[in-house]
């Protein structure tokens, strides 16, 4: 009979640490994918993932089993990513005047003919990455969860531990920050 997450968790809490490896193997790709949304360098991603699992092990006793383990783990992951963003704010001062050639070309194409600039281009992905890196930690988290991952305000509130009202306020501010960043691109490039 196949064992459930609850069985593995119960075994770990009884002292069978080796059973924790089963949980790690099962959810490691998901945690890595989430961490890669917020960190670019491999060593930073690995640090985040490691931190998530160490916290998960230490806090496993507080998991009450009312929701799936995956939800509990994803909350922990998102909060660890947010902590990472807050502690790495020094990287935010990038200038849009230093856009790469493909990024410049993509923007030129967009200005000349918006529909001709493909969303699947690497340059577009680099540009959004640059733009997200400029945002404050809370704004980046909200834009990622709300706009890119298409989650609801309620889901974001559960993941982050913020109230629904706070999520709405932060989403409003985050969109304003995005527009400011985009205006900066336009100004640096065309004025």
């Amino acid at each position: 009979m196949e064992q459930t997450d609850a069985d593995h968790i119960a075994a770990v809490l009884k002292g069978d640490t080796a059973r924790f490896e089963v949980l790690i193997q099962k959810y490691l790709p998901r945690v890595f994918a989430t961490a890669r949304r917020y960190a670019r360098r491999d060593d930073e991603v690995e640090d985040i993932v490691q931190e998530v699992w160490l916290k998960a092990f230490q806090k496993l006793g507080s998991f009450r089993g009312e929701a799936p383990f995956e939800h509990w783990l994803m909350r922990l992951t998102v909060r660890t990513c947010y902590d990472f963003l807050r502690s790495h704010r020094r990287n935010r001062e990038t200038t849009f005047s230093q856009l790469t050639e493909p990024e410049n070309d993509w923007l030129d194409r967009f200005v000349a003919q918006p529909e001709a600039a493909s969303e699947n281009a690497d340059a577009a992905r680099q540009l959004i990455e640059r733009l997200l890196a400029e945002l404050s930690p809370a704004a980046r988290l909200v834009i990622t969860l709300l706009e890119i991952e298409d989650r609801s305000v309620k889901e974001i509130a559960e993941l982050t531990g913020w109230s629904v009202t706070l999520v709405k306020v932060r989403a409003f501010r985050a969109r304003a920050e995005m527009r400011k960043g985009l205006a900066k691109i336009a100004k640096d490039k065309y004025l």
Partner: protein
Amino acid sequence: MNLVELERKLIAAARATPPNDRVPYAFEKRIIALLAVRPELDGWAQWGKALWRASAPCVAIMLLLGAWSYFAPAGSTSTSLSQDFENTLLAAVDQNGESW
């Protein structure tokens, strides 16, 4: 430049490329090894340890104050604690009256 359209395009670009979920080789082994090395944090044990550490200075202060109150010379001019308290409390009012 149409910034609303640019924002829509860039968000669509981010949506179109979900992040890679590749896991480095034997990463789970690394975490298990770390768990074995790192002692488990027990909040109550930490609290108990802190209390034990604080108990020695507390006892020392208690003994010092006890000794001081026992051996201090009884040359105080005050009549009672309540009188001292009242004097201290009304000192500002008394001085205020004198200044006028």
